[in-house]
């Protein structure tokens, strides 16, 4: 560990807050919501890797690999759903998809 764990956690917390702000502020745009989720998951990965480096355990890196696989499958599904919805209504605005059988 080259820096205190606190600094790593502060960095991860600030990145997480940025991702949360992105997902909340751009809540009209499906693509930007997905980008905010990406940023939040990256912050979680940073916290896992920092904890693993602090306690000298490899488990943190394994969990960040699991998060990475989760993210890739989530993004592929969500983007295919965005393409599907765009094919139906020609927009990516989240307000347009408020009913189930649109």
């Amino acid at each position, binding site marked *: *560990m*080259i*820096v*205190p*764990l*606190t*600094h790593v956690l*502060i*960095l991860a*917390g*600030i*990145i*997480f*807050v*940025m*991702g*949360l*702000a*992105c997902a*909340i*502020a*751009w*809540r009209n*745009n499906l*693509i*930007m919501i*997905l*980008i905010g989720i*990406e*940023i939040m998951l*990256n912050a979680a*990965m*940073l916290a896992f*890797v920092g904890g693993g*480096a*602090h306690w*000298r355990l*490899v488990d*943190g*890196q*394994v969990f*960040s*690999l*699991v998060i*990475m*696989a*989760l*993210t*890739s*499958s*989530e*993004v*592929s*599904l969500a*983007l295919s759903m*965005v*393409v*599907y919805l*765009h094919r139906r209504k020609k927009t*990516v605005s989240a307000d347009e998809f408020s009913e189930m059988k649109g």
Partner: protein
Amino acid sequence: MEQIFFYILAAVVLIATLLAITERHAVHAIVYLATSFFALAGIFYLLGAPLIAVFEVIIYAGAIMVLFLFVIMMLDMGQPEKARGPSLKQWWPALLLGAVILVAMSALFVTNVPETLAGWSYTDAREFSRVLFRKYGVAVEVISLQLLFALVGALYLGRRKLP
């Protein structure tokens, strides 16, 4: 020496992420985000996780961001004149929640004295894969099933309607 690199890379990550979430042109936001992920990969390497740094560059900056770019270009959302950023009315709940989280976090960290640790722990691929496949073998199976399900779901959603 590594401390200085860590703080420089942390500044790059924060600035690039801030530019990405305030950029109203989606393609520019993706490029800023790729920069942020490259800097984050450097941080992972400095924290002694070279394999995770490599995966970050390959999967995040290489695959996921390119997937986002493909979808943005395919849906023809690249025009900056049509893009409309969030107004101030949409920003303030985000800023309020973010401020609450940051204040709570700083109040938590002020009470703890930061401990400085010496030494450089470095995990090579042999140790990583030993833990991954011996201790978490079931997790690897679950991940592979999950990727298969995501593949099938994406194929189902992306199919052309037959007449």
